[in-house]
């Protein structure tokens, strides 16, 4: 079963679409990077996935359930919102008690052990914690109910590099420990290849690219060849980005088959390059590229 599935999902505020034409299928067990510039729709998608927002069009399901509507959906999905909002006058221990009292399943031992391992004292008021510590507490609160899917909205955006690393360590360790599916949004690409194996790329409220990272990298190539050379034999399905000097052309392409023409040198595309290329695409309305679906269609 897919951890997350959306069909034609859209959210509108008056005339402005915060998200539209969103169709996705994320298999369970993945660590998903949700990437895009600020305002691209990442927060909107995540809030739709936890039921904090209701769709204007289309549908979304998490773990096969409608988000936020039932106790089951709430119990099986954890959420850490942007800036890890908590009650600042509650102590860390009291914050855990919120989790214990409001959730059917709750592992208090696991939560306490984890915080002890991070040297975060239970008696300290949340308002006195550092940003990194607050993010860790919010993560423990989200994971203590032992969900199957956890969604995080830019959890590390405002953290220093050390706090960022520690947070990701905690998150991925818990993911392995509990077999979680993780969806993590960020406007930074740098940690992407390291932590994620599935990518959703949003720009201007639409999904521009989505799929398993291995597949995406395999389906794209950087072609370098003489300027003016025909691309007919180069096995190109679609050119994503191109640049030219007077003598040379460089194309980042989606491949349709092997590169037959030896005049074109074919290089593996770095994930960061791929993401940047798709983020820089001209702003046209088009069907989002879902590499998985395209693979199935060809097979």
């Amino acid at each position, binding site marked *: 079963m897919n951890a997350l599935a959306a069909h034609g999902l859209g959210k509108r505020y008056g005339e402005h679409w915060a998200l539209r034409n969103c169709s996705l299928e994320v298999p369970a067990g993945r660590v998903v990077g949700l990437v895009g510039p600020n305002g691209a729709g990442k927060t909107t998608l995540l809030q739709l996935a936890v039921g904090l927002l209701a769709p204007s069009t289309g549908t979304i399901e998490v773990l096969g359930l409608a988000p936020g509507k039932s106790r089951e959906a709430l119990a099986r999905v954890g959420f850490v919102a942007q800036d890890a909002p908590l009650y600042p006058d509650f102590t860390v221990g009291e914050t855990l008690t919120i989790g214990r009292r409001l959730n059917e399943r709750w592992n208090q031992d696991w939560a306490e052990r984890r915080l002890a391992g991070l040297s975060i004292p239970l008696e300290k008021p949340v308002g006195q914690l550092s940003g990194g510590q607050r993010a860790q507490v919010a993560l423990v609160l989200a994971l203590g109910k032992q969900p199957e899917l956890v969604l995080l909205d830019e959890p590390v955006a405002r953290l220093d590099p050390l706090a960022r690393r520690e947070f990701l360590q905690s998150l991925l*360790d818990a993911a*392995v420990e509990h077999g979680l599916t993780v969806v993590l949004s960020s406007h930074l690409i740098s940690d992407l290849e*390291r932590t994620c194996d599935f990518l959703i790329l949003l720009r201007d409220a639409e999904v521009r690219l989505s799929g398993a990272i291995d597949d995406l990298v395999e389906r794209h190539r950087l072609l370098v060849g003489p300027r003016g050379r025909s691309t007919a034999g180069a096995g190109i399905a679609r050119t994503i980005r191109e640049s030219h000097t007077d003598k040379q052309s460089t194309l980042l392409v989606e491949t349709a088959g092997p590169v037959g023409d030896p005049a074109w040198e074919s290089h593996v595309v770095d994930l960061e390059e791929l993401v940047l290329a798709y983020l820089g695409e001209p702003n046209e309305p088009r069907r989002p590229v879902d590499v998985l679906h395209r693979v199935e269609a060809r097979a």
Partner: protein
Amino acid sequence: MIEFYLDRSSGLSPYLQLMQQVRQALRVGLAEPGEQLPTVREVVAKLAINPNTVLKAYRGLEYEGLVEARPGLGTFVVDSLVAPPPGTHARLRRGLRRWLDEAQAAGLDDASIVGFVSSTLRDAAEERVA
């Protein structure tokens, strides 16, 4: 026990780096047959990398016959990296020398040759996995 690290500038994808580090450890004797590799969870918790990366690396090493996954117990080294026999070294060196002469005659300088070798190694490694 091997301790993994990631080099952002190496150009190799993370799982290839892990595989390379295991092979290197075997080569210099830092890891020996019977020894357990760090668990997926340990590597993930230390490096904050995707669990599948570690799984892919360990599977790749298993395919090469260097390690073995034992369900419920972990992943263990089963083979040491045996250096190729001396004759192979000499033959490889001669072949390389011939290629170098050809490359230099074609106008490549030393830096270009090293760059050429690196990028070809990289492409070959990626393609081997794909």
